């Protein structure tokens, strides 16, 4: 086994990105993700890579757009208000069908909000954010180790499907340190015949573009893109199930909320309540299959979120509202305690008795 080292979640993302072959990072400082930029600033010049602090989030995502079009593995990172600014570029990247990795270490909103951890950008990440019909692959790490492994996975999926992978983390996972080991990762390489490399006067020019003035063409592009999305929904959903075998109540949580929820599940089991946890690892594609199966056997669901309740909509859709879904939430940078979640589990138990 590789050596275990202690690392902050944000640093794990940066190190994993470098190991995944990313040599170009463009960003802009914002709490609580700035360690990613700082790590890149330190490392990139020493390995022949590029770190550039852009003048804004808007500029940085457009630098990513250019670098990706040039055929490179490239990333940017930010936190909630900065991601709002980047949504313009995210839409163009989607419309141009080019890969990118974007990290959102979420903080409370709306507006300038706060700087404490949050999951209230769930809608923005999973439903688009920018304008137009598009999707991003959204990966939700729940540990420092996953900050790294999902970053590597995110680059691979982005290249494979020519679209943005977003790491949807939060301030807690970004700031905390845990042991992590970097196994040797095998990096798949993908041909990029569409990339801007210069024609060398040997081929017709490549054009990276999202403008289609003829609606028939634009419609066709959208349908083609959604065929790709359907493939992803079929093949790439990831989730973890915990104590679900005999569960009568299913807690649903991702990221840091799932860590707290696990404590609550253990506590409830000690009280004799049959409860389990489904932790979506991909938020898009949402792991619908897991919920279809769970809806057949549990009596109710509890969506635990650091928001006013966003993922709960997807839980209801995935279960086709076959069973009641309740919400256990804190917002604005607050995190529910295991006791609060335990209380929700007890209430759910009463509801089914």
């Amino acid at each position, binding site marked *: 086994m590789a050596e275990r080292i202690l690392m902050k979640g944000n640093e794990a993302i940066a190190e994993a990105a470098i190991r995944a072959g990313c040599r170009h990072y463009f960003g802009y400082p914002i709490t609580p993700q700035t360690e990613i930029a700082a790590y890149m600033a330190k490392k990139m010049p020493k390995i022949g890579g590029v770190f550039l602090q852009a003048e804004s989030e808007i500029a940085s995502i457009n630098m990513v*757009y250019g670098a990706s079009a040039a055929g490179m593995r490239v990333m940017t990172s930010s936190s909630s208000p900065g991601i709002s600014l980047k949504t313009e570029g995210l839409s163009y990247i989607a419309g141009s069908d080019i890969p990118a990795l974007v990290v959102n270490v979420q903080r409370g909103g709306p507006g300038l909000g706060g700087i404490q951890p949050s999951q209230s950008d769930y809608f923005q990440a999973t439903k688009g954010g920018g304008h137009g019909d598009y999707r991003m692959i959204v990966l939700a790490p729940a540990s420092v180790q996953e900050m790294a492994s999902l970053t590597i996975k995110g680059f691979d999926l982005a290249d494979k499907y020519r679209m943005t992978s977003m790491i949807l983390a939060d301030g807690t996972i970004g700031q905390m340190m845990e042991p992590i080991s970097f196994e040797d990762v095998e990096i798949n390489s993908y041909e990029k015949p569409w990339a801007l490399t210069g024609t060398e006067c040997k081929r017709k020019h490549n054009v990276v573009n999202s403008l289609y003035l003829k609606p028939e063409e634009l419609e066709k592009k959208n349908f083609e893109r959604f065929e790709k999305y359907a493939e992803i929904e079929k093949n790439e959903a990831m989730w973890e199930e915990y104590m679900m075998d005999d569960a009568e109540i299913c807690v649903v949580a991702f990221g840091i909320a799932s860590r707290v929820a696990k404590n609550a599940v253990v506590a409830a089991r000690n009280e004799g309540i049959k409860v389990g946890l489904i932790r979506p690892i991909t938020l898009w594609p949402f792991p619908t299959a897991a919920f279809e199966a769970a809806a057949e056997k549990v009596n109710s669901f509890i969506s635990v979120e650091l928001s006013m309740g966003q993922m709960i909509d997807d839980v209801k859709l995935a279960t086709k509202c076959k069973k009641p879904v309740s919400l256990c939430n804190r917002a604005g940078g607050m995190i529910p305690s295991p006791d609060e979640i335990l209380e929700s589990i007890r209430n759910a138990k009463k509801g089914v008795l």
Partner: protein
Amino acid sequence: MAVVFEKPKSLTDAPFHYCPGCPHGIIHRLVAEVIDELGIEGKAIGVAPVGCAVMAYDYFACDMIEAAHGRAPAVATGIKRCRPDNVVFTYQGDGDLASIGMAETVHSAARNENITVIFVNNAIYGMTGGQMAPTSLPGQVTQTSPYGRDVNHCGWPIRVSEMLATLEGPEYVARVAVNNVKNVKNAKKAIKKAFENQINGKGFSLVEVVSACPTNWGMTPKAALEWVESDMLPFYPIGVYKDRSAEEGK
């Protein structure tokens, strides 16, 4: 039979969509001729703006990318930092470069980003049908300044070349015009220098091309070119505003 005139190799066969009398065709051709003459067609990567030149990616035969409104210098930065051996240029209008994209413009200049920027200033938003631009002249009538640009209400036009020349960063900033043959020839020289600077690793080079918009100015092409001479150039004088290598005697 000897060929005395032909289309530059760096332009595709796609017919321009520009209005009759629009100087974009001339400026495209100047850029393409320079690319041909420098032998960089195979290395060039162009960044198209949002504005009338939005479909420049159809016209230039080199690799092209379409940027979001105003972001061309950021996109060009991303490409150039990945592919320093390619020759990266943007082609932008006044709304794109000097209004919504001013931050990207100023900061790429401040970084002395080794790119070439062709800035077409015709003092109006063309593609959207003739609204006030950041470079519209005081008193100029447009769709969104129907009583003439009132500088007390909506501010003064911005002289981009003069402003950028105050920065330490950029290598070369020049303003040219394409309203007569002599000016067109000089414009080509400046554009060529802006590309040569990049090839020689000297850094950010911007050529502001004072152009015309007969359609949205409500003038005949000839009258529009005369208005460039009588009204535009007194406010936007032709000249080299910064040439670091020349100043340093290199």
